[in-house]
């Protein structure tokens, strides 16, 4: 095993593959010694499909679980297409964990609003596990999740379980639905009015397409922008803040993010040049 997990990919073996939806799957990855470096919710690994390329993928598993990583991946390009063909027993190169986590300590004692869009629920899942493992440290919690259509809803069984554990405050909506769908229809921001507690003392964690982050954060007018955190995405290569590919203002998303406070990025989110 290499001493440095950050610069050189380590061979992790796929020990389980879960097909979440038609184009999204979760890989369980075990390190050679079955004790991969620990991570915090919101961090990511660089996953390498040998001979194809390397991409950043957030952890989607329980951070208290020390034997393996879970990564939930949507097929969008060459690397993810290659990984979608992997089976149990195949190997993936792993570097990491990288990035700043969700602000766990600073959020303790506060109410929490979690807003996820599409595949954005995956990086937030590790935080939800953390929150459920430390439930007494947080106030009221509401999870708002928007997907494109019912077939693209991730972690459907867990959403039901979380609903029970979070006093029914789990709200799911889809942008487009077939007539048979009996759930909510409308963009994720339409769920904000369902939150039954005041947001004055809340923190909000948002993950999803950047345009969704922009519109959703703008509607959280009751929450101070210092208490709203966005998981930002940029093209990453080195993941250690050297190559500059993921520069965003004076931050490198790989090193200073991917979780950034809304107060820091708010003036620049609608700048096309950035």
């Amino acid at each position, binding site marked *: 095993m290499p001493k440095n997990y950050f610069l050189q990919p380590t061979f992790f073996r796929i020990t389980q593959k879960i097909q979440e939806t038609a184009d999204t799957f979760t890989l369980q990855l075990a390190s050679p010694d079955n004790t991969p470096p620990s991570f915090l919710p919101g961090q990511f690994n660089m996953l390498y499909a040998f001979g194809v390329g390397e991409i950043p993928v957030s952890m989607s598993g329980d951070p208290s679980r020390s034997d393996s990583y879970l990564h939930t991946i949507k097929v969008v390009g060459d690397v993810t297409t290659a990984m979608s063909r992997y089976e149990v027993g195949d190997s993936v190169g792993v570097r990491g964990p990288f990035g700043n986590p969700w602000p766990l300590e600073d959020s303790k004692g506060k109410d929490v609003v979690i807003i996820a869009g599409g595949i954005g629920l995956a990086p937030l899942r590790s935080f939800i596990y953390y929150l459920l493992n430390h439930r007494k440290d947080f106030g009221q919690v509401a999870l708002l999740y928007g997907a494109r259509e019912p077939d693209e809803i991730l972690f459907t069984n867990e959403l039901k379980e979380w609903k029970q554990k979070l006093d029914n405050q789990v709200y799911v909506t889809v942008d487009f639905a077939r007539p048979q769908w009996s759930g909510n229809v409308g963009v994720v921001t*339409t769920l904000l009015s369902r939150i039954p507690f005041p947001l004055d003392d809340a923190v909000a964690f948002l993950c999803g*397409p950047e345009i969704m982050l922009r519109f959703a954060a703008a509607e959280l007018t009751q929450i101070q922008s210092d208490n709203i955190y966005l998981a930002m995405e940029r093209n990453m290569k080195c993941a250690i803040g050297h190559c500059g590919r993921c520069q965003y203002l004076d931050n490198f998303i790989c090193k200073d993010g991917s979780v950034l406070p809304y107060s820091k990025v708010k003036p620049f989110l609608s700048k096309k040049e950035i």
Partner: protein
Amino acid sequence: MNHFGKLLKEHPFFQDLPYDDLDFIAGCCTNQVFKLGEMIGREGEPADHFFLIREGKVVIQTFIPDRGETTIQTLGPGDIIGWSWLFPPYNWNFDVKAVAATRTIAIDGKCLRKKCDDNPVFGYPVMKKFAQVMIQRLRAARIQVLDVYHKNPPA
């Protein structure tokens, strides 16, 4: 404060209006309950009322040939249904259906329009509230058509 004034005060849409205004609006209010599957409004038909949802679930729908009834948005407690009563020709633009037993405060549109016309100092803040909801719904509809979760969004 009268009975409907109190109910209006409990609903997020009107709760920041002064008590006197809520009592004034209360004269246009009735309670209305819709059963599962009951139509609240039908596209093209007169929109005499709007509704404040207290409990339940409602869908805004339209019919698309070959696709059937298509839901555009779901509404729930704290939401309002309808602004077609505000502007001519005062007809519903979409179908509205209860998809759960739904308790509402129904407000007579003609009655409230008259109160707003007769007393613009009262009517202007009321109209601003509706404008705010329209902006929210328009923004939501615009994001919806952007199809932001599609992996290959249209160029």
